């Protein structure tokens, strides 16, 4: 498969994930399970963009690691701050006071 074809398929996958992922927000369900699903879709989309559009696999290791820190870090933060919302509020409330 040539590089252009891979880019086209990556774009199709991103569009499908975006439309499918948007349906997560149209339901009445709430809570941790939705946060995990949203985080997973976010991570997959970020990794597709970084791999195929940004060509991060060819980039200098420092650039690669720093961008991957964001790609993995944000979805993990979404899950952690949903699961540990009250401890985060207590911790930051004390720090703010």
């Amino acid at each position, binding site marked *: 498969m040539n*590089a*252009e074809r891979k*880019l*086209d398929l*990556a*774009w199709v996958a*991103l*569009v499908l994930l*975006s*439309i499918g*992922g*948007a349906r*997560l*927000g*149209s339901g009445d369900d*709430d809570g941790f399970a*939705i*946060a995990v699903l*949203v*985080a997973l*879709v*976010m991570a997959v*989309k*970020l990794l597709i*963009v*970084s791999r*195929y*559009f*940004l*060509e991060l*696999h*060819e*980039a*200098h*290791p420092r*650039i*690669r690691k*720093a*961008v991957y820190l*964001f*790609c993995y870090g*944000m979805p993990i*933060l*979404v899950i952690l*701050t*949903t699961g540990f*919302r*009250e401890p*985060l*509020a207590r911790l*930051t*409330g004390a720090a703010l006071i």
Partner: protein
Amino acid sequence: MSIAVPAPSTIAPAVPPAAPAPAATGRIPGSKAMWVGIFCELTEFALLFAVFFVARAHHPEAFSAGPSRLSLLAGTGYTLMLLTSGWCVARAVHAMRSGKRSHCMRWLVGALVFGLGYPAIKVFELQRNFAHGLDGSAGVFIVSYYYLTFTHLVHVFWGLLGMLWVMARTGLGAYTPEDHGGLEAFACYWHVTDMLWLMIFPLFYLLG
């Protein structure tokens, strides 16, 4: 007359040592300067995301009800416009690498059209929001939404200006298949701005 020929074991190897694998060393896509700018952008958004998560922890009810106040259609529209624009930019870079300058220009025009879709949707969404009373006094969720999305909009504007610049340079024949670092640097910025939206969109339109 005799010519001294060194013994085979003392002859320096004709073939240089193999270059390290690209995955081990990699390269700097675009330019170092652009990556300094990109990491400044990522740091700025990291701080804004931290504020978002703290505000969400302190006001769970406001953030839980937040997504239903926004237009999911507009949010999905932004995502599709930016992803499609990013795809066009990636295709433009590949066209330039293949020496197809006219193809590159056409892909850049496509990228600009879809990129302009982002502020166009923003105009309609803002009209809708203000008609629903979603202004700066509409609570912590809406305030967080405005500061993050407007900051992102500013970065999209920089990207659109950059896109016009690389289009002009492409039209003037400044890039070649061997030397198109400026085009690559712009592409990196645009893809990272795209990635930032992929983080912002679910926070406000899906998760709350």
